[in-house]
């Protein structure tokens, strides 16, 4: 036996106990509102001469008008394509001159622009951000180029099993609901879009009263409010488009497959529409998910990866949104293990809900994992800005962060059982495979999920 360490002078018979918890003050957010309705939030975090700016607009892909899937994302993509007489390249040269890390993100409920810059450039960063968001050029020529690039992107996504699975799964469980399409839209919807659609979406959705400007870092509140007032003063509210409303959900087949001949792995999605962010069960669901599939030592990952070796990793999530978001398990498994992985996955989901309820050890571990390292989420200016963005997106109270740890700590095994029973329904789970139909087809009937519905890759 090879042992590198000598018989140790220290006690290795037990793990050291953690010491007392060191106190941590959650960041305080200073809030103002400009006369045009724009919220301006700042957090002082002066350790490093940087500022993280985020401009959140509470309109996202779910605000795409009927038949115009992808309009919000295309509009977001057009914002940094020039302003006034300046071209896209000139705008990006200016961003580069201040060392900005600029990014645009579009989700179901919101779009956000972020720019992290050296703090000495705060005024130039806000001036540029306002040019991009408030005064984009939205030119015809740029539109046709950007749309073409998005069509090429859609072509390429057909080869990416994860992207195919995500898009097909949303369509299966949401149908024509505002959450039923990926932000990028489809070939058909992009084909009929015009630059006028972008202009009108910009006018109706990118409005100051939907927006919050967040600045975190080496800055003062009055300074940022003053700069924001100067840069964003002429941003006026137009006529608002309608807020997305939930329409009826389809009933999907329980088992579906998008064929991918000769694929070495099957990309799986298993889930259903679950619950909105404002549910009172939020904290208990977060704990339940941690135990089920939200951490490395979750039931799903320990089973499919560490016990069976079927996959590089498996996870579950309740994707919390303003309207009811999905509960979904996602995993990529070796082709030969497809049916068994589905069986084990559904078994784990159903197990936590009923026959194999959470144990005291699992509950303690899940809560500890969520609470003891919570301060880590507030280390950098970018972390804090992202956290503040959650408050703005979901109308959460100022003391939300301070309350998180005590609230999660109060979750009981009975709570986990109750919220799993209320929000997760095994007979309603929709399973999607993107994989080799010829190789896996014969194993599927034994799952008892009915005949698989074969979806054509071009139609998803």
């Amino acid at each position, binding site marked *: 036996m090879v042992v590198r360490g000598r018989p140790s002078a220290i006690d*290795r018979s037990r793990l050291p106990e953690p*010491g007392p918890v060191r106190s941590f003050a959650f960041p305080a957010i200073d809030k103002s509102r400009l006369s045009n309705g724009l919220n301006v939030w700042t957090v002082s975090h002066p350790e490093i001469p940087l500022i993280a700016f985020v401009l959140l607009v509470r309109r996202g892909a779910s605000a795409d008008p009927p038949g115009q899937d992808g309009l919000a994302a295309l509009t977001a993509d057009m914002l940094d394509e020039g302003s006034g007489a300046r071209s896209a390249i000139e705008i990006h040269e200016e961003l580069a001159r201040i060392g900005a890390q600029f990014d645009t993100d579009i989700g179901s409920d919101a779009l956000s622009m972020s720019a992290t810059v050296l703090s000495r450039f705060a005024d130039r960063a806000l001036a540029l951000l306002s040019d991009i968001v408030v005064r984009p050029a939205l030119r015809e020529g740029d539109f046709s*180029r950007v749309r073409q690039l998005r069509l090429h992107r859609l*072509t*390429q996504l057909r080869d*990416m099993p994860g992207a195919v699975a995500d898009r097909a799964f949303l369509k299966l469980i949401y149908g024509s609901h505002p959450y039923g399409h990926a932000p990028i839209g489809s070939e058909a919807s992009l084909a009929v879009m015009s630059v006028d659609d972008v202009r009108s979406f910009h006018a109706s959705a990118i409005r100051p009263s939907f927006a919050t400007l967040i600045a975190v870092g080496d800055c003062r509140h009055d300074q940022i409010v003053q700069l924001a007032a100067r840069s964003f003063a002429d941003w006026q509210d137009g006529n608002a488009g309608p807020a997305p409303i939930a329409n009826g959900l389809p009933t999907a087949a329980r088992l579906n497959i998008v064929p991918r001949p000769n694929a070495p792995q099957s990309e799986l999605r298993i889930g259903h529409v679950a619950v909105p962010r404002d549910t009172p069960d939020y904290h208990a669901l977060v704990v339940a998910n941690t135990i089920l599939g939200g951490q490395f030592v979750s039931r799903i990952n320990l089973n499919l990866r560490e016990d069976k070796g079927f996959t590089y990793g498996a996870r579950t999530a309740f994707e919390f949104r303003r309207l009811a978001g999905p509960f979904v398990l996602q995993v990529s498994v070796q082709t030969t293990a497809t049916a068994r992985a589905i069986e084990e996955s559904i078994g784990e989901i159903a197990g936590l809900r009923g026959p194999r309820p959470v144990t005291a050890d699992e509950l303690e571990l899940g809560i*500890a*994992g969520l609470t003891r*390292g919570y301060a880590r989420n507030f280390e950098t200016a970018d972390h804090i800005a992202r956290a503040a963005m959650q408050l703005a997106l979901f109308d959460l109270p100022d003391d939300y962060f301070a309350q998180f740890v005590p609230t999660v700590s109060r979750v009981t095994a009975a709570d986990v059982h109750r919220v799993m029973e209320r929000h997760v329904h095994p007979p309603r789970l929709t399973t999607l495979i993107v994989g080799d139909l010829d190789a896996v087809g014969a194993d599927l009937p034994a799952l008892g999920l009915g005949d698989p519905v074969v979806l054509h890759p071009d139609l998803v």
Partner: protein
Amino acid sequence: MRLAFTKHTLDNGLDVLLHQDRGCPIVAVNLWYHVGSKNEQPGHTGFAHLFEHLMFEGSQHYDRGYFQPLQGAGASLNGSTNADRTNYWEVVPANALELALWMESDRMGYLLPALTDAKFSNQRDVVLNERRQNYENRPYGLAPMALLAALYPPDHPYHWTTIGEIADLNTVRLDEVQAFFRRYYHPANASIALAGDIDLDDALGLVRTYFEDIDAGDRVVPVVAAAALSGDIRIFFEDRVELPRLYVAWLTPAMFADGDADLDLGTDLLANGKTSRLYRRLVFEERIATDVSAAQNSREIAGYAQITATAAPGHTLGEIEQVILEEVTRLAAGGPSDDEIERGRVQAEAQFMYRLQTVGGFGGKSDQLNAYNVFLGDPEYFERDLARYHDVTSQSLQQTVAHYLEPAHRVTLSIVPRGRSTLAAPDSSPTDVS
């Protein structure tokens, strides 16, 4: 801009780097072993990375998995392997530093008694699935295999990828794992950095307590190898992709060597982001490509630069190749503009500042200190590293590009849709890749 630290070397050779940052009540523990896929042999590839997986499966005094106690203490943790090093890190609440050191030291000193055949074959399956997910079942995912194999000769340790060959992974044996551990996983081949909410004396005391009684191993002999390209090596393979993609790659200086920073900035201004010369021509103006990117991939004993572009439908890789060569040649002849140099400098300053924001994880302060210490023996290198970028001039960048990005000595790889070999760049030969 400074990254302050103290360095101590224990009697067994373990380097200990300490950095205090009281901003958040957390501590990053970051442990590097100076071993990567570069230390493997042909026929035994993928080994260093497979070994990294085994480090998370438990050790003699806590044999129930590595994650559970640390996640229970509120830690986040991970590890990674590349050609040159393997790193492991935990970011723990400040009150759990001792636990992290207990766990790291137990697997450094006492891994093998807990390593079983069952764990070994399970993690081999996991790694084969990682390979399927990230390479085989991903469009263009096998490009690194083809590029590295063409850039470096078969006996050069950068000839293969870190994930390794399937056949090698299938034949590796448990006794090879044990020999590997003895050879590379010991204090004299390791460096530990602690960054965060620590008292420097207390932290050093804890590291001594847990690591001092682990025996030093034999010094690892540095890997030496050379590579040269005899001409323009033109290859292609077919893949499950819709659009053909072109890769042009050159052999370049190693990490921190003369020319490395010039090529970092040079590849940025050629093809990174909307302000770059190739984006402007290929995507913005001529619209013959859907995307373009470039990088100087600098590694410990050699580097390679690559430019990658995907053809827009209706356009050929030959057209794209011509534009790439024109722009590389133009930069080699005329150098960058003053504005390009100035933007490059400001962006380098910002990038270095961003790295100082976090104590841990991949690329945080603790990881950075270990990188300088392991590769240069000089954790104080942060400021000089930034200076390398400030010292780049129009002339030095031009000369470096002219010297290394030579059209006559390169690898030109095409990846084309299945059954469409005619879409490869002209005069390319098929290459096998899996």
